[in-house]
């Protein structure tokens, strides 16, 4: 489902003397359907950078990233948007939403975007919020006012609302209590069982061991002596 080859990435800081910082070279990764691959490496090794490149959020300097057959490094914006809508989900560490929108609608939005009927989308959203133990009295409020843990769970609910064939999970279990952590791991297992290809970053080693089929140490892609 996800095939990465010869991927490199540099940052050019035009406003700081044009410094060029190479951050990745020879990146490679392969994720099959129903498989979960954990990205490991020290902080700053480029785990999140790689994940963002898969999502099309960062541009690649060279190489290719095939997601369900589409090369993200060369795709048109609308192709990437269609990919994100239908195929590629991303649970980031931070919730970014329009202020004022009710939590229930935030979670239902990815379903509305793929044309699911409003009521059916809300029904799915209710189920996920219930599973993730967001009290019902909060559903009509905007998540912008929630605690960090609550926001994280809303973010996860949103990421799992539509059954994406590919999922990117950036620290999905961070700052969660044991029960909610268990729920999230359950969601990941279910996604794998339905054939989703998953790339995850887990600092929580026990969680990583439980859901990941294998891991990739991204430090090996770090350019030597830049």
């Amino acid at each position, binding site marked *: 489902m996800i095939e990465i080859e010869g991927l490199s990435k540099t940052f050019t800081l*035009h406003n700081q003397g044009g410094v060029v910082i190479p951050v990745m070279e020879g990146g490679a990764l392969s994720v099959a359907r129903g498989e979960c691959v954990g990205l490991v490496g020290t902080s700053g090794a480029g785990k999140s950078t790689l994940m*963002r490149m898969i999502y099309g*959020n*960062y541009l690649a300097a060279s190489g290719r990233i095939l997601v369900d057959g589409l090369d993200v490094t060369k795709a048109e*914006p609308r192709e990437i*948007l269609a990919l994100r809508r239908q195929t590629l989900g991303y649970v980031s560490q931070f919730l970014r939403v*329009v202020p*004022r929108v009710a939590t229930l609608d935030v979670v239902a939005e990815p379903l509305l975007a793929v044309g699911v009927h409003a009521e059916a989308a809300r029904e799915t959203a209710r189920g996920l919020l219930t599973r993730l133990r967001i009290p019902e009295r909060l559903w009509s409020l905007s998540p912008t006012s929630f605690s960090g843990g609550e926001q994280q769970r809303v973010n996860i609910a949103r990421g799992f609302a539509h059954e994406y064939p590919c999922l990117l999970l950036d620290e999905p279990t961070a700052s969660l209590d044991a029960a909610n952590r268990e729920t999230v791991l359950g969601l990941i297992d279910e996604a794998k069982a339905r054939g989703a290809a998953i790339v995850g970053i887990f600092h929580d080693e026990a969680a990583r061991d439980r859901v990941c089929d294998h891991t990739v140490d991204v430090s090996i892609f770090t350019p030597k002596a830049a």
Partner: protein
Amino acid sequence: MTTPLLEVRDIAKFYGHRIGCDKVDFDLYPGEVMGIVGESGSGKSTLLNCLAGHLTPDAGQVRFEMRTGEMADTVTMSEPERRMLSRTDWAFVHQHARDGLRMNVSAGGNVGERLMAVGARHYGNIREEAIDWLGRVEISETRVDDRPTAFSGGMQQRLQIARNLVTGPRLVFMDEPTGGLDVSVQARLLDLLRGLVREMGLSAIIVTHDLAVVRLLADRLMVMKDGHVVESGLTDQVLDDPQHAYTQLLVSSVLQV
């Protein structure tokens, strides 16, 4: 395979020797929202006005997919055709609501004008449709006979949107639609616009200098400087991984809250 709704080719506009905008080239697909950002004088408003037929570009083509399916160059088409487009398939939301509203006409009359312009002649139906649209932009039915002069800035802006969308346009041009509004009012307007864009499958081109607005509304971004497009791409990619020196400066200049 979908085809573009709008094909813009090498648009240029000069004010004497000064460049308004030059060599602007892009395609806009149905349902896409494109943001154009840049500082004052970067040419973004000139470009928008060239695209919307308010200014005649000195060079280039703006081809629009008509309801018949054929692409027509709106720069060279006859004025009646172009004006008909701007009453039906196009909408233009001005930064200042008073530029886009008739301030001496009631809210209902403002919304109804485009319907009457395309031949609606049943008062009851026009009024019903106007009230329905006021509701969609969160203006109470009880305000239908009030003039926009009695409305707050945010309400005026929502009224302008209703007035523009009532004929079911396919392409909306917006010039700083949230400029001059309080932050809380902006958020409400943005949410409303997002919902309408999704429900109606609208394509939109939004000119703004507010990067937060484009992050929430736009799928794609074009960054302009001195009349030229210096960078374009997926909105979050351009904002999170800007490639051009000017974009990097623009992004790093935003105050964090």
